[in-house]
């Protein structure tokens, strides 16, 4: 269980988040959405203990601010928006860093299997710097998956925190990431991710947190949050949510001429 209450974050004397509180359950994919600058990434960084905050964040009952990094690393892995690697590590060595940080059984083949899972079979020995942006992003995802290799750990459910995990990926790999997130949650782990794509959100999320100007505008199930009125209010542009014949809602941006509902 992830429980956050009364989160305030101030950066350079400017309040970036104020009074954010919500909880996320293992088994769920929780999506954090909102316009640019609404505080999504800041919230994720506070939830993972990377950023100083006022308020309380508890992960599996542990106070995140007071728990040693090593113990946190054993139950949760964090994917940043972008990661620069300083030295000429290979893709496999990067994934291995995750393997060493996580807990639970691991064998030598896991690095290769995880690289194959993110569609990078055979790339283990390739220098990270020579990979494309999308490939680098997937290597980092494989590293996160190596760290959180057991959705249920001896210390409670495992957690994935993903900050815009599809930002540099093509559509097939975006769907791949969603499949991986869904699978991790279905196996008993918790997933919290910042997303920009509202349709991916509609497709994969169980719970949605909609931020605007550093505060929660709405939270709840997909049907409760992805509505014409709430999205238009959050993003400041006309948006229409429809329901396709198959499943789940879809979201269409309206042309500039359309008016807010």
């Amino acid at each position: 269980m992830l429980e956050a209450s009364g989160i305030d974050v101030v950066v350079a004397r400017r309040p970036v988040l104020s009074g954010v509180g919500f909880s996320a359950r293992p088994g769920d994919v929780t999506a954090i959405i909102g316009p640019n600058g609404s505080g999504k990434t800041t919230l994720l960084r506070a939830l993972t203990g990377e950023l100083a905050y006022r308020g309380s964040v508890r992960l599996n009952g542990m106070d995140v601010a007071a728990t040693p990094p090593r113990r946190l690393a054993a139950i949760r892995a964090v994917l940043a928006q972008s990661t620069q690697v300083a030295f000429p590590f290979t893709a496999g060595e990067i994934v291995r860093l995750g393997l060493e940080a996580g807990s639970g059984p691991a064998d030598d083949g896991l690095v290769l299997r995880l690289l194959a899972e993110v569609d990078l079979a055979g790339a283990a020995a390739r220098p990270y710097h020579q990979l494309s942006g999308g490939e680098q992003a997937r290597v980092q995802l494989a590293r996160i998956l190596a760290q959180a290799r057991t959705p249920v750990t001896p210390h409670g459910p495992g957690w994935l925190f993903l900050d815009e995990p599809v930002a540099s990926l093509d559509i097939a790999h975006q769907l791949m990431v969603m499949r991986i997130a869904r699978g991790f949650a279905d196996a008993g782990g918790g997933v919290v991710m910042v997303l920009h794509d509202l349709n991916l959100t509609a497709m994969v999320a169980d719970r949605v947190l909609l931020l605007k100007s550093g505060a929660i505008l709405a939270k709840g199930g997909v049907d409760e949050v992805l509505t014409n009125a709430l999205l238009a209010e959050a993003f400041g542009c006309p948006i229409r949510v429809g329901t396709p014949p198959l499943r789940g809602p879809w979201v269409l941006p309206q042309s500039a001429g359309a008016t807010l509902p």
Partner: protein
Amino acid sequence: MPLALSGDSSRRRPVPLTLLLILLTAAVSVASLGSGASGLTLADFADGLWGQGLDQRSGVILWDIRLPRLAMGLAVGAALAVSGALLQGLFRNPLADPGIVGVGAGSSLGAVLAIVLGGLLPPGLAVWAGVHLVPFAAFLGGLSVTLLLYAVATRAGQTSVATMLLAGIALGAIAAGVTGILIYLADDRQLRDVTFWSMGSLAGASWERIGGALPLILPALLLAPFLARGLNALALGEAQALHLGVRVQLLKRAAVFASAAATGAAVAIAGGIGFVGIVVPHLIRLVGGPDHRALLPQSALLGGSLLVLADMVARGVVAPAELPIGIVTACIGAPVFLWILLGRRGLMGL
């Protein structure tokens, strides 16, 4: 799954390289013991040791001249190379080197300060401090510069290369300026000590000097392997290292202290020897990869061997006179530095 790979190619095998470097170190050590101004060779020593015992002159040359010189070369080379590797890991940049970013100049300032102002200490304290005073002062000088440099060059967990190099130059210049003032103020005896020391040479090697530096070099070298996992994670940035379970602040402090101790002690006993700290880790990374668990011990081995080798060159080219070893390392090291810089120009936007 189209996976026909046997074993795990993601893990490089560090052992053969380590073994090679141990052999190299042994070979260089033996060669160094067998060469010198006296003309005595290994065969002479061997004959003496296995035969009727060394005569007094040979004994003095082996035990009091060549062995301490070898030991000092290995210790100083290892200290400088490991110090460079630690700084590079800390700054996440292969161009960080104690000599280039001003840490060496800070150490020099500390050492000169101890030589010139050491006489002001109460006599009892001065005796107690003895051979450790100069190395310890050099360590404090290097530490101060490293801490300042980190504070100036790092913002929100990311280090700016340009800021690091420029701030290093500025801090180095300040340290050199203050050192100059002290030398100006020094009396004749102190001036002789400073000059002798600043020539950057292994010629002053003695067991006493080595004994003064080892309490700083040994702990630094022994601490380094414990920082390896954290430095690997730090290569992804401070935030990612934290999420990988690393206590980042502790790691950074330990790396700063270890590299300042090793640099300070090395500078204190051998003067300013540049470029070992940048060339050695770079060569290891080229051959064995950047994993600090292998990089740190291998840098120690290669740094020691290369410095002993450079010392043999310094003693050999203008024999029976000696070239300052700093000249030899600079002639080899500076081009390598330029080579790295040119190779990375595109990446750094310099």
